[in-house]
């Protein structure tokens, strides 16, 4: 028998609670009446002030006898003297309190703070076959970087197929995160929505929209402007646009983590990239200002 009550027991409706309420109401009515009568008659309205009883041997009106002059009084301590037990108890209270406080608060603070810095895992996004990327043309690729998180993890990259370099495919993979304060930069030129493609890849749906960023990339927030290699041309950004690591696997273009870029010289496959670890927007990666940001949290 799993159920100790058994299946046989009949389920009767529980007794009505109305009688309890009625008794309660009656009690309230009676007590309320008595209380109101008391108050109205003034039976409770005044408290009589009584003088405290005098100590023995004290004349009325004389100041009270101090405790240390009474019977069995303690010897008067020297000024500043404290009993060892007193000191011990004080330290024990403070010490125990500190230990208990620490045991309770430290894990809680760690719980609030540590997850922001631990397990910041690396990402890998499959953008599908490289045949979708026409040589020399920019494509606006949007994808979920962490499909389990859903839409919040949607990111955009500007991808350009640079043809072959030393027999290997070369790509420019620029992140659209503005190097000023992180707004999404836009291609400075037409995007061809009618030629857009949605590719199903192991990383989920990836949308590819060809584009012609003739004027480079432009930020809608404060007008930061970048050239086609992501170099800063004008506006408040402090460096060039970040880039994605990339590699080719089974003919598919894979994007890895992002890294920061101070400056790019040359273009396309021949670009020379001054590369730094990923750094937040608005932070310098080179020059004397970079001394302000010696340490980066794990990205």
């Amino acid at each position, binding site marked *: 028998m799993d159920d100790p009550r058994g299946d046989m027991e009949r389920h009767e409706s529980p007794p009505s609670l109305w009688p309890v309420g009625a008794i309660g109401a009656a009690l309230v009515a009676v007590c309320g009446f008595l209380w109101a009568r008391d108050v109205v008659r003034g039976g409770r309205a005044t408290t009589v002030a009584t003088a405290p009883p005098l100590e023995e041997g004290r004349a009325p009106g004389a100041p009270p006898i101090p405790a240390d002059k009474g019977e069995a009084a303690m010897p008067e301590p020297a000024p500043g003297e404290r009993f060892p037990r007193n000191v011990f108890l004080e330290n024990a209270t403070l010490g125990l309190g500190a230990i208990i406080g620490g045991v309770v608060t430290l894990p809680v603070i760690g719980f609030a703070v540590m997850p922001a810095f631990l397990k910041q895992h690396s990402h890998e996004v499959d953008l599908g076959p490289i045949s979708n990327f026409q040589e020399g043309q920019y494509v606006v690729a949007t994808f979920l970087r962490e499909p389990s998180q859903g839409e919040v993890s949607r990111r955009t990259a500007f991808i350009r197929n640079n043809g072959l370099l030393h027999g290997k495919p070369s790509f420019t993979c620029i992140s659209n995160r503005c190097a000023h304060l992180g707004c999404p930069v836009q291609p400075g030129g037409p995007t061809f929505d009618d030629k857009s493609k949605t590719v199903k890849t192991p990383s989920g749906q990836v949308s590819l929209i060809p584009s012609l960023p003739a004027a480079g990339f432009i930020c809608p927030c404060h007008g930061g402007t970048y050239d086609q290699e992501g170099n800063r041309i004008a506006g408040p950004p402090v460096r060039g646009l970040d880039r994605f690591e990339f590699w080719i696997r089974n003919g598919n273009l894979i994007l890895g983590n992002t890294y920061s870029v101070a400056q790019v010289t040359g273009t396309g496959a021949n670009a020379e990239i001054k590369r730094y670890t990923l750094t937040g927007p608005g932070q310098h990666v080179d020059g004397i200002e970079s001394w302000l940001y010696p340490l980066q949290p794990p*990205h």
Partner: protein
Amino acid sequence: MARRKSDRMQQIERMALYPLDWLEERSGLIGGVRYFLFRKVPGDTSWWHTLGSATLTAFLVQLATGVILAMYYKPDVNSAHESVQHITNDVWAGWLVRGMHRWGASVFIILMFMHMGRVFLFGAYKYPRELNWIVGVLLLATGLFEGLTGYLLPYDQTAYWATVVAININGTAPFVGPFLASLLRGGAEIGPDTLARFYSLHMLLVPGALLGLIGLHLYLVVRLGVSSPPWSPEAAGGQPEPEPPPARSGLVQPRPRAGVRGRPE
């Protein structure tokens, strides 16, 4: 002279006051509230001195409307925006309460600045009130942070990108900035945790801090007393201003009190 009250009236009065007496005898709370409300202030305080209370009122409105918004709001990246639309369009009077909270947030900040301006221009931050100025600065920073964390919650494009920019501005602080930004985001990237984190900060941690600081602020106001305006002849040791000529009679016209000249101290 008022008419002698009838016995019936006295009985009713005693019954009405009984609960208050009961509370006062056991807690002293009534006396405390009376002390707070009827404490003495300089005779020449003016409307400028009401800006602090106005700020407090705006804060209390935010508390009340915020608690009720929290009954309908869903702090989850996939439903936050929808739940706010639901509050605005479907829930009875939701548009009103949300509107009060949204506009009231700006009112609160503006009043805080105006109050600060009055304290500055009156020189009311000087000895012995420096500590209250410092508490005020903490209140200002905490109040602004409350606004920042609340701004993300509607989770529309403005909210999202404004928060991105705000977090990245924090990120540019020298040395600690990058860590501060990660702490605010709850990770290297804005994600599902960021919204929940901002929600918790916005409705629990920051209002709690504000309440504590406001308590300290008001304690100091009561303990030190409100300062006179800088033009006050009384505070400069002069004679109190003469009683103004009797105004036209009205509801609130004070009766002249026997033997009292000038304003009550």
